[in-house]
Every structure is written in C-alpha cells, then in structure tokens.
C-alpha cells in the first residue's frame, strides 16, 4: 500500500504549481485568502486564462476540450489550485452541465454549448429548487407545456446561485403529472433574457448577494433545448449527483483555510501573546486538523477505488457530510480568533485587522454548506438507506 504519486504525477504537480505561481493575479489571491467573493469580471478573466492553458475543465475528456486527466491528476490539480490561493471557479457549467450534455445532449447541443462553457461566453445557473420543493425536489411544480415547437414555462425557482450573473439556466421542469412524480420531470435549457423571465435578488446572512428568485410567466423555450427525453430529467439530475466526486469533500480548500486560520492565530494576540501559542487554541486547531486528516484519507480511499474502476456511489454523501463539518469548524474557529473584531459588519474600509474582517461572514455563509447540495439530514437518510440497508 502506498499513496505516493508516480514520477509522472509528481512532474505534473510541479508543472501545475509553477503555472499558478506565474499566472494567478495577486489581488485575486488576496481576495480569496480574505474570504471575499471576486467580481464577475475578475472571475471570467481568470477562467479565460485557465482555459487558454486548457485547464478550465479538469474533469472533461480531450474530445470536448478538456485535459483528459485521470482522477489522480484532477485531485492533484485541485490541491495545487487551492494551495496557490485560486478560487474554485464556476462549477455550474463545468462540473454540472458539461458532463450532462456529454452524456445526454444532442450533437447540436454539445457543439453549441460546450465550447461556450469553456470560453466563458455562457454563465450557467442551476434552476432546481422551488419554494415548495427543496429536499423533496421531485415535487417540483414549475411546468413546461408543449405548444408548437416550444414549451411554455410557468412557475418559479428559488435559491438560484448567481442567476443575476448568468445568461443561461439549466432547469428541471414538470412536463407531466401522470404516474410517479419523478417520471414527469424534464431537463430544459433556458436563456435568461427570454421574455417573461424575471430575476429578483435574495441577500443572505453574510450580507452578500449570491442568491436569487427566478419567476417564469409564459416563458417560451424552443423544444430543441430539451436535454434527453421528456420525463428523463430526474435520471439526468441523479447522474449529475454522482458524477464528479473527487473534490466534493473540499479537502484542498479546507487545508488552505486551516493554514489561513493558523496565520490568523499567529498574527493576533491574547494577553500579549500570539493566540497560536495558547494551548486552548492549539487544542482546538489540532482537533480540526485531525478531523481533516481523517477526511483526507477517506477521500484518498474513494479516489483509489475510483482509480481502480469502481463506480462512485453513496460514499459521496459521507464525503460531503464530513467535508462540510470540517469547513464549518474552521470558520467557527476563525470567529473565535476574531474575538471583538467579529462585531464590525464589513461594508466599507476595514476597521480592524483585514485578515479577521470576513471571519463572521465566512462563518455565516458556511452554515449553508449543510443545507445546499442535499442537507445533512438528507445525506444521512441516503446513507442509512443505500449503504446500511436500513429502510
């Protein structure tokens, strides 16, 4: 048993590390370290640079413009990406829609959309959740009714991340009320500037605008924008959920954030000493570090199984549960370090040490990690049923 990277993998790692060192803009790195969201333009410019290098879509095969990496290479790339201080980038097009189109799209859909994801000419958002359908996604009601060569869409979506930046949405809609509710769901691609579509902002408890509500009133969508068959939407959505699992645990970013946490503790004092010297703080950091180590090895075991050809299954639920727990624990400790500097609500210039300024916002937003992408409770239901056979 070993987890050593091969010489070729080590060389790859060096190459990636060097490229990030040479190409990552300093202010983007700084923002990422402080826990601040980059602007749309900054992100797009950065992603275009990655794309020029051919690295924007690590999980894509070469035939579609990806690097055709192995799971291990993708893992290494993600480690180096986070280590360099680069933001994760937009997952909606690259991680979610791309693989769906490759598996279920028509040749025209692939030709039209895949290159535009890579060139960042399209920004996709994910329209799944509705006010009445969160954990019980299959109960969704937004309807798509055929009319000539279009569907007419009515209803609303909620919690749509960056819908206000997006020009397109992949959307689950109801095309039938017959039979099982899952069987009446279809997967539709919608232009955000279609008449009848309206986006309204939702401000979250970190004070930022990530989320939106999207309303559809007689929105006409060409039938050519249906992905797969009518009624195949649920299958497609589930395919997505088990697709890209090497990074769901967020190990790479948690490692980096743990480093940031230690730096915060080293630079800030309590009773005249750096907090990092305080045994109480050290114990708490040690606790998170150990949890992260266990997570990393769970991740490596999953990776090894994938590399050996095993299809990813419900262990991704396990990775998500443990991964989000570590993310939340790190941000909670950031708030502990911030102490009195947790009070100022950062709207303009920093009134305290900048490295502590966003601790509370990070902590606040990290609470969402156990809600989105399948809540903690839902993940545990999945594990109980699928892994443990408890029904």
């Amino acid at each position, binding site marked *: 048993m070993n987890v050593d990277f091969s010489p070729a993998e080590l060389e790859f790692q060096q190459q990636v590390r060097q490229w990030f060192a040479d190409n990552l803009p300093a202010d983007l790195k700084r923002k990422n370290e402080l826990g601040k969201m980059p602007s749309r333009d900054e992100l797009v410019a950065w992603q275009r640079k990655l794309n020029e290098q051919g690295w924007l879509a690590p999980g894509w095969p070469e035939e579609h413009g990806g690097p055709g990496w192995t799971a291990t290479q993708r893992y290494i790339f993600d480690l180096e990406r986070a280590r360099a201080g680069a933001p994760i980038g937009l997952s909606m097009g690259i991680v979610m829609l791309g693989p769906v189109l490759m598996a279920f799209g028509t040749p025209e859909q692939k030709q039209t959309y895949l290159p535009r994801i890579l060139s960042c000419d399209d920004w996709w958002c994910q329209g799944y*959740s509705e006010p*009445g*359908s*969160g*954990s*019980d996604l299959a*109960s969704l009601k937004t309807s798509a009714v055929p009319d000539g060569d279009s569907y007419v869409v009515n209803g609303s979506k*909620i*919690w749509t991340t960056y819908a206000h930046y997006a020009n397109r949405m992949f959307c689950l809609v109801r095309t039938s009320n017959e039979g099982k509710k899952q069987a009446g769901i279809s997967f539709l691609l919608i232009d955000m500037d279609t008449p009848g579509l309206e986006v309204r902002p*939702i*401000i*979250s*408890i970190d*004070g930022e605008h990530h*989320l939106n509500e999207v309303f559809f009133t007689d929105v006409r969508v060409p039938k050519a924008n249906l992905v797969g068959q009518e009624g195949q939407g649920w299958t497609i959505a589930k395919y997505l959920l088990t697709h890209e699992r090497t990074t769901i645990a967020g190990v790479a970013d948690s490692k980096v954030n743990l480093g940031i946490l230690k730096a915060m503790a080293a630079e800030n*004092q*309590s*009773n*005249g000493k750096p907090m990092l010297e305080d045994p*109480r703080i050290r114990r*708490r950091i040690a606790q998170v570090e150990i949890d992260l180590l266990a997570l990393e090895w769970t991740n490596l075991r999953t990776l090894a199984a994938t590399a050996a050809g095993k299809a990813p299954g419900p262990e991704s639920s396990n990775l998500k549960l443990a991964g989000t727990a570590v993310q939340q624990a790190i941000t909670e400790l950031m*708030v*502990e370090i*911030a*102490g*009195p*500097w*947790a*009070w*100022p*609500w950062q*709207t*303009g210039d920093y*009134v*305290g040490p900048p490295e502590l300024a966003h601790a*509370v916002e990070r*902590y*606040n*937003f990290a*609470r*969402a990690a*156990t*809600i*989105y992408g399948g*809540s*903690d*409770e839902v993940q*545990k239901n999945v594990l109980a049923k699928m892994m443990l056979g408890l029904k």
Partner: protein
Amino acid sequence: MDLTLSDEQKLIRQAVERFIRNDYSFDARKKIIGAEPGYSTAHWQTFAELGWLGVPLPEAHGGFGGALADLLQVVEPFGAGMVVEPYLPSVILAGTAIAEGGSEAQQAELLPAIADGTLIAALAHGERQSRFNPHDVQTSARREGDAYLLDGQKTVVPGAPWAQKFIVSARTAGERFDAEGIGLFVVDADAAGLQVDSYRTADGARAGNVTLQQVRVPASAALGDPAAGLTALTAALDLGLAAACGEALGAMQAVYQRTLDYVKTRKQFDVPIGSFQVIQHRLVDMFTAVESSRSMLTMLAVRFADPQERARALTATKVHLGQNARYVAQQAVQLHGGIGMTEELDIGHYFRRLTLFCLAFGSTDEQLETYAAEHI
C-alpha cells in the same frame, strides 16, 4: 424556597413584552436599523418614561436600585426583540461604572441624565490588542497640572456613534497588564482630539473605534481614584455580562419557538418536516438547551449579589449559555433550510446576535478556561 417573580417583576416584564410585541416587530426593527441614526430616539424616550432606563441604577440618583432579577425582566424581552437601542452600553455598562466608581457629585450629575434618557454614555475599554481583557490597557492618561491628557485608541465600543460621553479606561501608572494604575475618565464625545469612527455591527446595532489624541480633561473627570478604576470597571463588565446572558436567553427562546412553529408547518415529502423523528429529537435538544440555560440564569440571579459567589456563578453561566446559544442558533438556521440563510427572515438575525453573544466579554471557551483555572 421561592423562585417565582414578584408582582412588580411580573408587571415590568409584561410591559416590556407588550412593547416588543406591539412596537418592535421584526419589520419595525428593520426600519430603525436601516435609517439614521440607527436606533429609535422615540423608543429611547419611551424606555425612559416607563422607567426601564433606571432599573439597575441607584435610587439616590434617579434609578430604581433593581437587582439582577429585576434587570432580567427588561433584558430578556429585549433579547427576544433584538433591541438595538443602547441599553447595555449606556444604562448597564456606563451606568454601573459611574455608580460604582463615581463620587456623589459625579453620580448626581450623570446618572439621572442616563435614567431619564437625555444622556447616552458608552464604556470605552477595549483596545486593538486587548481582546476581552480589561487589564490590557495601553491608552495613557498623563497628569498635567489639574488636567489629564489622554492618548490611545479604544476599539469596538458598542453605542459609540450615539454617545455624548465616554467612560474611558486609561493607564495612569504601571505596566500594560497591571491591575493597578487603571483610571476611568469621563470624556465628552465632542472633546478636542477625540474621534469616533463608526460602523454597523453584525447584530444590527452600531459601534465605533474611539481615537484619543492629546485629549485634555480636568482632573475631576476621573471616576474615583484614577489608579484604581478596575473595581468599577469589573463591576460594570460583570453586570454587562449578566445582562447579556439575559438577552441571549430571550433570543434563544424566541428563535427556538419560531423553529418549532416552522417545522410544524413546513412540508416536504407531503408531510410536515416536524414529523421526521430526527427533526423531533433536534427540537427536543433545542428545548432542553433553552430550559437548562434558564436554570443557569435563575441560579445567577440568586447568586449574583453575593461577592463570594459572583465570579464563579457568572463564568459558569456564560459557559453554559454560550454552548447552548451556539447550538440553538445553528440548528435554527439548519432546520429552516434555505430560508434560514436569508437576511429577509429574523432567524439569521438571531443567529448573528447569538454568535456575538458567544464571544461577548470573553468567548465560551475562554470562560471555560477561566472556570477551570479559578473555580475547581
């Protein structure tokens, strides 16, 4: 043994609860914090008229000389309403510092004005490097004839933008961490050389950093002995922490209640989410957390006046409420799902307020460390 409230306590509690219900809805509060100056002067006037601003202040100077048990009847409903008016900064922190440290003349000048609402004062003791340690004072007060010259910066002072006067801790003698040599000085907010940089706080109130450059105050501005202000400062911080625990309990109770209501009405998979056993157990744990916190606060109210018992009781209460507030706040967001993450709903605001409570006057963890070091 009798742990019930007196008639007087019941009356004041009902009055404060009525005010929160009728005049301090979440939407009304939103309007207050979104506009200038960030608190309601009309409400402040109401608090004064109903006598709430005098509850903990001495009877001889316009107050009611209330005990902690009386004060809790005001601050618990305030916590449930997430009141942003500077009750804690002005009445409790500055008021106690003056009542404990000030001469008769200083008390007579300042306390009636705090009690009738015409004076808002703020206690400026924290510094950039000090975290929550009141001994860690680098701001200096240098004697010059019959005046003192103050130099330094006080950071994250709650209520600072609204204060007309500050009670500033400054070193007249000794080294950075010495308990001796700390004085408390009454400084006008518009004194030459004093600058306030104001900001909003994560819980919807306002605070500021107070910079003092060669601020000249008369020697008579010192509250009591200019080398022994720590006693009054500690008394203020003690009552402040006790009141903050009361507020936190009010907020915990409110956010628990809202979560309980929500899981009964929110349906997923065709049933209320409160019908899932895992959710039921979670609510039971939240309920237990609130009840157990209430027990600790009852203990504190009984023990607080006893100088032998106060420190231990206070530290224990903070630890226990801090742990339970964290749990209740996190679970309230979690069980609301996406809607719990929004600025629109009150849940996230309770979450932020309770997050700050967990840190206030020394974090849960720091207080546990103190308890371990000093009380076992």
